[in-house]
């Protein structure tokens, strides 16, 4: 569980390991060809409001549908117009009026109507339908068709992140008539406005898309056909890539970074996404409720060792307890915890647990890097007298224990990613009791920070928000309710003949910009 995406600065943050754009890609894009993408997570559902299999579902929906707004497919945490050409915010941030893009057609040739938009947004706002991510529909009241090309949305309160909230899958626009007529059957042969349309879907095996001839961006997409081959085994994905059985592969394991760098046929691409190793602390457990202890734990972490030893240089040292998000201040403004054993020991000495204590750390089974990380944490915290017992948990059990607060320390999700590029969602979970998650299941609460987060989430003004967040970021880091061990990038690899492989801030490939230098030779 837990795999969703969010967006922030999609710039390649690791120049050395980043995309080396092949010379051929400098040329003008060529149309045609088909591309095989070897993907870690399988697609199970094509219903964007009921995506239960995380990225496997999300990335397929991203090709089939569009929202009113969208994250820049080329990266960057700015929002671009999607099916809405433009919008106006009024009524103190409680009313949004969207002007729809003209001439947009669904992949079956039907025109996009304001009714479709209203229909889709109302589904988004109905918690009975939007079960998966109702949190992003916070404050949604209703949508009204103003005219053929105008839709107004009213909110119950100002929601600063609203435009971001509707940029992701629950708010994708679907054709009202067909959905109503066909019911559940619609999602088997879905119709959307995205760059591709469904060609064939073989459960557990692959899903194939073909060019949507009615796509609204001129000349795009370039590819005739895209096929996602599901391959949960990483060796298998890489073999397929090396074998040219696939041209792109996602989920490149950290251990393969170095070997892949040496491969002439393959380009390794790291993209910053709001993903991190979130280590949750249970504040119901005495030693962990002690701020000095938490600080000591932060200070005792040798993050460089973690980064280089385990993540093979990928990732970055965080200056936040949350993953990298929009508005995050830089290290100069909010400095990260340094690795300082002496200071850590001093903090321990100040705490009520100066003599050290024993605790447990549970993490998802089946990931070698968590195993190694566990060992390293055990080792590093052992130096300040914290004895950590490691427990591997089957994912489902782990989630269960996390949700019921039955843990000391836990890494609750194997892939821990924010759904949005803005901090509203995660900050709310952690600090807003109204989220109902009891401090994101950590039992932590801090009234002061709660108040700041509330204000932040309801402040429509961008500049204002950009000023507020670093303060919250710093306050949270000081408090360390949870520990962000390290920020992780998304790592994909593709063959050199594949161009335009940018990944948006949500971690999704937008294959409408992708093209093959060897357009006819692929498959």
């Amino acid at each position: 569980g837990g795999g969703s995406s969010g967006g922030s600065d999609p710039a390649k943050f690791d120049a050395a390991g980043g995309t080396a754009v092949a010379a051929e890609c400098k040329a003008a894009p060529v149309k045609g060809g088909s591309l095989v993408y070897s993907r870690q997570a399988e697609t199970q559902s094509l219903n964007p409001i009921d995506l239960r299999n995380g990225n496997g579902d999300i990335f397929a929906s991203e090709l089939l549908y569009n929202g009113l707004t969208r994250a820049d497919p080329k990266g960057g945490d700015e929002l671009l117009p999607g099916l809405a050409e433009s919008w106006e915010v009024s009524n103190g941030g409680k009313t949004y009026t969207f002007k729809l893009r003209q001439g947009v057609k669904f992949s079956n040739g039907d025109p996009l109507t304001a009714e479709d938009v209203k229909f889709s947004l109302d589904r988004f706002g109905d918690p009975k339908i939007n079960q998966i991510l109702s949190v992003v529909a916070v404050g949604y009241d209703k949508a009204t068709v103003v005219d053929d090309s105008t839709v107004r949305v009213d909110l119950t309160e100002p929601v600063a992140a609203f435009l971001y909230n509707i940029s992701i899958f629950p708010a994708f626009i679907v054709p009202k008539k067909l959905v109503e007529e066909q019911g559940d059957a619609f999602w088997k042969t879905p119709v959307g406005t995205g760059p591709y349309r469904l060609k064939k879907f073989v459960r557990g095996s692959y899903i194939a898309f073909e060019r949507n001839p009615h796509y609204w961006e001129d000349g795009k997409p370039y590819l005739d056909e895209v096929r996602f081959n599901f391959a949960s085994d990483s060796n298998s994905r890489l073999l397929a890539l090396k074998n040219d059985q696939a041209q792109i592969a996602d989920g490149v394991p950290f251990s393969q970074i170095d070997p892949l760098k040496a491969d002439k046929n393959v380009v390794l691409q790291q993209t910053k996404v709001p993903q991190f190793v979130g280590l949750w602390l249970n504040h119901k457990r005495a030693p962990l409720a002690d701020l000095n202890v938490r600080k000591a734990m932060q200070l005792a972490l040798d993050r460089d060792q973690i980064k280089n030893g385990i993540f093979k240089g990928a990732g970055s040292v965080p200056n936040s307890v949350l993953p990298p998000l929009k508005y995050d201040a830089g290290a100069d403004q909010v400095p990260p915890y340094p690795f300082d054993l002496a200071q850590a020991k001093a903090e321990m000495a100040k705490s009520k647990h100066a003599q050290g204590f024993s605790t447990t750390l549970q993490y998802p089974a089946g990931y070698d890097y968590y195993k190694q990380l566990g060992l390293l944490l055990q080792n590093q915290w052992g130096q300040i007298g914290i004895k950590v017992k490691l427990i591997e948990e089957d994912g489902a059990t782990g989630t269960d224990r996390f949700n019921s607060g039955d843990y000391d320390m836990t890494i609750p999700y194997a892939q821990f990613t924010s759904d949005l590029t803005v901090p509203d969602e995660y900050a709310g979970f952690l600090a807003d009791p109204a989220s109902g998650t009891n401090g994101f299941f950590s039992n932590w609460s801090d009234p002061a920070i709660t108040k700041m987060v509330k204000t932040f989430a309801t402040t429509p003004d961008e500049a204002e928000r950009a000023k507020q967040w670093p303060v919250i970021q710093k306050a949270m880091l000081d408090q360390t309710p949870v520990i962000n061990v390290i920020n992780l990038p998304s790592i994909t690899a593709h063959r050199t003949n594949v161009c335009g492989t940018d990944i948006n801030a949500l971690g999704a490939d937008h294959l409408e910009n992708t093209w093959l230098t060897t357009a006819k030779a692929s498959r």
Partner: protein
Amino acid sequence: MSTATLTPPARPSAAGRLLRRVWRQPLPVRIGGVLVGILVFAAVFAPLLAPYGQNDLDFNAQLQGPSLAHPMGTDDTGRDVFSRTLYGLRIDLAVVLFITYVPLPIGVLMGAIAGYFGGKVDLVISRIIDITIAFPFIVLVIAIVAIVGPGLTGIMIGVPIVAWALYARLARSEMLVLREQPFMLATTALGYTRRRAILRHAVPNLMRSSLIYSTVDLVVNLLLLAGLSYLGLGMQPPNAELGTIIAEGQANLLNAWWITTLPGLVLVVFGVGVGLIGDGLSDGELRGGGA
């Protein structure tokens, strides 16, 4: 050999007798015995033999190929694969022996009872056997792991729950033949209780083929451990188990073959050793004294 011994030779020690008995077996059994013997020795004395601790991380020696310092190379956190293999072997052998030889007598007993009594008893036991065999084992292991917590405990509970059934089926079909044997009839004729007939007379005779089968089972179980580790259901960290080592190394298989291959080879050697013994035994060439 005409030197007649007039005085009986001094009775050799139990170990000596065992050794002598092993030595009288056919060549493949002997080779198998030596292979397994070496591995058992290595496992038992792992703490003395291992040059490094099993969890000593060394970020200055990541992914090094086999060398004098690291006979089996290092893994991607610089742990010495050889040391981990030795320690892993230790746990593996213990676990595998447990999950193989705990269900064996239970299964044999159940099979013996079913075959001996026949009729309703047989019907009931046979159905239970059928259900157990038909049950997707992986569900059970995952379920147990989820209940008792991850690690070898789940495997050590889960495997025996299922594994007895194979032995039971084997023993039952043998019992059907055995019970018509005059010496089994004789237990009835002699007025022995059924309990005695089954426990003292039938079970020891049913053991042999189960023991032979168990040599296959040993290997299967060892592979199962590895397979479950591959699926993330194996040993609790940080300590190693062969399957875990192999499964972990699997991520590096394309660039660091030794992490998977060398411990895998140990597995193979164990399998070959046990297999040779089992082969020899099933050829009916076992010489000297009954078990």
